[in-house]
């Protein structure tokens, strides 16, 4: 947790950023918010809210 918090002492260079850009798949790793099955499932769940 402390490691995840201690992130302000460095800055990525431009070539790093360019390389990281190549990892982008432009898609969710979880679910598509336009998928009717997911929309229905999420909307109909009864939670303790």
């Amino acid at each position, binding site marked *: 947790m402390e490691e995840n918090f201690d992130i302000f002492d460095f800055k990525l260079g431009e070539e790093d950023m360019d390389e*990281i850009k190549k*990892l982008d*798949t432009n*898609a969710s790793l979880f679910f598509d918010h336009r998928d009717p099955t997911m929309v229905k499932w999420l909307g109909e769940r009864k939670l303790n809210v």
Partner: protein
Amino acid sequence: MQSIVLNNGVEIPILGFGVFQVKDPAECERSVVDAIAAGYRLIDTAASYENEEAVGRAIKRSGIARNELFITTKLWIQANGYEGTLKAFQNSLKKLQIDYLDLYLIHQPFGDVYGEWRAMQDLYKEGKVRAIGVSNFQPDRLIDLIIHNEIVPAINQIETHPFHQQNQTQKFLEENNVQIESWGPFAEGKNGIFQNQLLLSIAHKYN
């Protein structure tokens, strides 16, 4: 802790601690206490995480003044419109043991979003919440909400990590004066992110 300014003048820390999927009450409470002790000041939860009470207990135990914390929670689809939102908001405040909220988000772009946004605008004008926004709204949903309502969302909290960088969406949000907030910065561990050769080599460079 660095902050940025939202479209309504409110400051928000640039890094926060979220408790999605931290269901066990004791673990959730402990993790939030530890997070605050480590220096986190923004805590993010949601009605649908079913752990607002644990977060509330942790906030009370933290010893940090209320006005030094930034508490976010979210409205679930089940609220079903205007009246449901007012009830859900009161419910969340009660569970969190606070009398105002820093940021309230519509959690998903589903259900009676427009009734809910109107309720959130009223809560905002009454001073019960310092900023209102949305989560998981794609650009077309966001612009539709913006043009048909009075208050522009301060935040759109969306999935952002190396495998889904949201570069075009970020530009769109900037152009429309909405601040991006990112969930899942580590992709929740998916796609082998922690073994990714490129990310590891960059990490070693800066270690």
